[in-house]
């Protein structure tokens, strides 16, 4: 039996605001527990929510970047349930009149090439607090610092057909939202969370199977692993003659397995209704248009432009635009005068390595451009330039040439010096000289190597060959 997998993803991203969604507490990370709280996010009697304008603006921009229709009027709703990390006993979210609907994300599926996933909706809501289960014996500890943090929930259509495809979608979704400046989108830091829905059906059929929900994945790789495990579990279940139950499962990164949660609660009845503490959110059409007009260049558009403007290969353009910062850096280096192709190689090489390690671009773009110029002019070899680069990473705002000089890496192009080394080499290898003159022209490489050795790498290889050619005549 051939099975088709149907996957939909719900992604929660933390909006990059300074303060919480409904109160003026700062967004912090790592503060002592329950120190960043106020009557509103503590859910004290008499407290009331007031929405954060910047959270709305970022959510709108995220929705527009995902091609959604932003609705001029949307409504906050209460999602009612009891849990210790939920101070009010309800979460303020949006239900039947969300901020945005009907978008799509284009991305490269590893299975099906270029494709589109529909975005059903994007809405805003507040985050809950944090629970720690293992800190105290027989108790759960509650920290409400995070309660009230602004989130955007992005729901995809169930258009994904494999765990690998789901991962690729997530990568592109994240990329778009980071480009748009909406969220840091870091699963490690908790500013991006994924809940997945998966069902199976016989290949070629259209009726949806019972879907399960998979949670607790802390990286895109683990999303893929978890969905692989769940798909396998469902297939095994059905092939053994059982039915798939609508359950929630948690992924265990250590074992790679998914397990149903222990709580046997029936599916929640959230009793949504419009929050009477919050009048409708009304956005002026002109303002929405302005947000769309002021979106930064998004990944797809940037990739296409870089490919065209700088004659980059499709692959190179894709790599460079994977991160907004990387693409921006690349363009800065080119703007500072460096050759695009060479800049691209540097950016995809050394610069990307540094960025992956440190999360930043310590070497100012113009300095890298200068360094590239030094290589072009033969002042340093490419190998030497890498060492200069490493030096610049340590102490960024140095003149690259001065650094190269200090490190003794400046190549010698002086004709006299080169001639001197060439003479020494030719004198030391008369046999090879004779053979060369008799036609073994491939010995040129040998001579160049010897000159490099004799000069301890300082000779400019480009200048050595003409001198040799002249003297070997």
């Amino acid at each position, binding site marked *: 039996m051939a099975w088709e997998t149907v996957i939909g993803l719900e992604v929660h991203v933390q909006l990059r605001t300074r303060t919480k969604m409904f109160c003026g507490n700062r967004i912090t990370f790592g503060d002592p527990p329950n120190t960043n709280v106020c*009557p509103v996010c503590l859910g004290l009697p008499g407290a009331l929510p007031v929405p954060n304008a910047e959270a709305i603006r970022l959510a709108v921009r995220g929705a527009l970047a995902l091609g959604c229709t932003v609705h001029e009027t949307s409504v906050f709703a209460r999602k009612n349930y009891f849990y210790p990390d939920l101070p009010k006993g309800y979460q303020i979210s949006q239900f039947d009149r969300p901020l945005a609907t009907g978008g799509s994300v284009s991305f490269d599926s590893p299975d099906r090439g270029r494709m589109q996933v529909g975005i059903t909706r994007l809405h805003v809501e507040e985050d809950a607090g944090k629970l720690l289960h293992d800190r105290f014996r027989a108790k759960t500890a509650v920290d409400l610092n995070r309660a009230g943090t602004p989130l955007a929930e992005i729901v995809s259509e169930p258009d994904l057909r494999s765990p690998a495809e789901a991962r690729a979608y997530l990568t592109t979704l994240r990329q778009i939202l980071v480009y748009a400046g909406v969220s840091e989108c870091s699963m490690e830091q908790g500013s991006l969370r994924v809940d997945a829905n998966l069902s199976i059906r016989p290949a070629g059929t259209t009726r949806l199977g019972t879907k399960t929900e998979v949670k607790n994945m802390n990286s895109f790789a683990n999303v893929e692993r978890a969905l692989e495990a769940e798909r396998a579990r469902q297939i095994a279940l059905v092939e053994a003659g059982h039915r798939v139950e609508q359950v929630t499962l948690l992924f265990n990164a250590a074992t790679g397995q998914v397990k149903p949660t222990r709580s046997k609660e029936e599916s929640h009845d959230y009793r949504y209704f419009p929050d009477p503490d919050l009048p409708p959110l009304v956005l002026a059409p002109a303002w929405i248009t302005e947000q769309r007009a002021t979106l930064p260049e998004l990944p797809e558009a940037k990739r296409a432009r870089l490919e065209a403007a700088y004659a980059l290969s499709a692959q190179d353009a894709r790599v460079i635009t994977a991160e907004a910062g990387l693409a921006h850096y690349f363009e800065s280096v080119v703007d500072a005068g460096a050759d695009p192709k060479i800049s691209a190689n540097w950016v995809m090489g050394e610069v990307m390595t540094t960025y992956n390690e440190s999360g930043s671009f310590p070497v100012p773009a113009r300095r890298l451009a200068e360094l590239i110029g030094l290589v072009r002019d033969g002042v340093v070899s490419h190998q030497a330039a890498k060492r200069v680069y490493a030096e610049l990473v340590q102490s960024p705002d140095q003149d690259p040439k001065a650094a190269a000089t200090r490190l003794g890496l400046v190549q010698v192009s002086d004709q006299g010096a080169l001639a001197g080394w060439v003479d020494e080499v030719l004198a030391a290898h008369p046999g090879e000289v004779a053979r060369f003159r008799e036609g073994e022209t491939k010995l040129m490489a040998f001579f160049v190597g010897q000159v490099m050795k004799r000069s301890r790498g300082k000779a400019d290889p480009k200048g050595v060959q003409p001198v040799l050619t002249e003297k070997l005549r």
Partner: protein
Amino acid sequence: MSIGLDEVLHVAKLAELAVNENEILRLVDQMNRIVNYVAKLDEVPGDRTAEPFLAGPKAVMLREDVEVTVPLARPPSAIAPEFLEGFFLVPRHGAMEDQ
């Protein structure tokens, strides 16, 4: 429209309200009385398209994204039923560890 015992118990569970045995039947009776009374609204012709009533402003006012620390006259530890090392404490329940 009549509410049965099971339904009242289900609603009590949703609302996290313990209902003790001696009062449950009276509660069912009272709830039925109330619900039958409010069902009077069925007399009013329905209008699916009507907008719900807004008592206050027609559009929500938004707050600037600036930090405003509301000073708490007493810290969470002063009002919490159980508080240790900066955390509110509740009994642990197996089902909750999974989240």
